[in-house]
């Protein structure tokens, strides 16, 4: 059963994250799996972020698509929207939007990762 959301949770949640879905998906394997699932998500975000900056366009496109899927699964809706925009920009001849999109994605990923770390820490202490 996902944990009840407190007011503090809601107040500190990063913008554009469906916190109910986020916690529900982190707890799909029960309390004992929350920490390892959070750590795996952190590792995946790090790998995807590196691939987004790869020289090879195919790898950039694959990473953007993967980001869209992972973000959607944990309710990071703003990140999903940015990934969709980025996917379109990667397919268009002008790549002028890529820089601001990556900056915005970086902020959202950082916020989601901070949330994941806090959940992993909380799960480890209980």
């Amino acid at each position, binding site marked *: 059963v996902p944990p009840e959301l407190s007011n503090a949770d809601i107040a500190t949640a990063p913008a554009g994250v469906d916190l109910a879905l986020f916690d529900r998906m982190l707890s799909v394997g029960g309390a004992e799996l929350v920490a390892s699932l959070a750590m795996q*998500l952190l590792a995946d975000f790090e790998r995807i972020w590196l691939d987004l900056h790869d020289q090879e366009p195919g790898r950039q496109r*694959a990473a953007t698509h993967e980001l*869209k899927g992972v973000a*959607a699964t944990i309710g990071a809706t703003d990140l*999903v929207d940015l990934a969709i925009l980025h996917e379109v920009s990667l397919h268009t001849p002008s790549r002028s939007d890529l820089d601001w999109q990556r900056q915005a994605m970086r902020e959202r990923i950082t916020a989601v990762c901070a949330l994941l770390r806090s959940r992993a820490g909380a799960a480890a202490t209980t």
Partner: protein
Amino acid sequence: MSPGALSDPILLIEDTPSLQMMYRAALARAGYTVEVCGTVAEGLAGFRRMQPRIVLLDLTLPDGSGAEVLDRILAQRPETAVIVITANASINKAVELMRAGAQEFLVKPFDDQRLIAAVHNARNALSHREPWVASPADAPPAPFIGQSPAMRDVYARIRSVARSMATVFITGESGTGKELCAEAVHAASPRAARPLVALNCGAIPADLLESEVFGHLRGSFTGAIADKLGAAAAADGGTLFLDEICEMDLNLQTKLLRFLQTSTITPVGATKPRKIDVRIVCATNRNPLDEVRAGRFREDLYYRLHVVPIHMPPLRQRGDDVIEIAERLLVEMAREEGRGFAALSPAVRQIFLTLPWPGNVRQLINVLRNVVVLNDGRIVEPQMLPPDLQAPLPPQAAAAPPLSPADVSGPAPAPLAGNGSPFDALAGRTLAQIERLAIEAAIDRHGGSVPRAAHELDVSPSTLYRKREAWNRSDKGR
């Protein structure tokens, strides 16, 4: 019935590790067992191995599209319930996949209850379908890989002929799997518990061949220091496989014919014949009727042997089999060589599907070995292929007839010195490995013809046959 009552494991094909963990955990809590694969190649191999009734399939995978996996899974087993997972919420895509046979379409985000409900629905739908029973004709006999129509005919013929005593005559280009076919006939026959003895008629000097086939007694000729059991006697009760039968000396063909007519052998130096019970399977990469017309093969022996012909199709006529074979072998070779390769990139698949493969599966094996030894990574990309494959022959060259002996002499080889020397690619290899590469490349260049390759390399064909036998033994021993 509890969910756990469905003991069949579910196959999950998804490449992102955190999503693998989530889906597996959600389904495990609901009582399901899940096996996870991360690529198209692993997924198809997992499907063949597990034969699951329910598959959860991500639509975008690192080495290809989930839609391709859906097609291939349903082609092999149409009753499979495939639940497609995607982050692309396009209605057109959903309609396209449902038309292609997907059971359900899950668009991210979905929660664990939605996932479990989709699997429950698939289970319920399956319970209303006729249980799928694998037709024996559907599964390739080990160790064959591939489900192309041409190979299905071969499998059906192997199964039909295996039960009888009829002589089997296998034809096909070099590298098409004639020896595997002989092994499959033997393994599916009532003689499977008895020996299968293979003899390469082209690898043994003519003056020793009689002794190899029929045996000899001590002192029957110089060097016969002990009695020798010939291949025919060693195969008593089992199967005698005579490979490269058209290379057999005419004199010995007469003795073989007598053996087939009387089922008796007389070892060299013996006076009394001995009754032998063997089933004969023979093979050649030549057109046996051409050999009869040219006077190199006895007509009466041809009709005695040519009872049930099986023709092994060349790789270029086997459609998608080339991809299935390549990806299965790639994973095996990568494991042997300590590399991480798991799949071919879509571009490499396209190249493989259009190549003429004159050396057939043997050439494919050499290409993959070259890639795995000289590169590392997860996906095979076009730049990792040997240079001659990166710029494939134009179609008219691919369809060109075999070279005439006059063509074989060809122009002098390019000098090896200077920048970009071919030697660079050989760095770190032993002399024996380089010799093997050179010989196999020469055989491939001549469409699998060992005699022509031998002519180019200025050695006897039997030298090449002997070396290939030794490599095959060494490869099997590993």
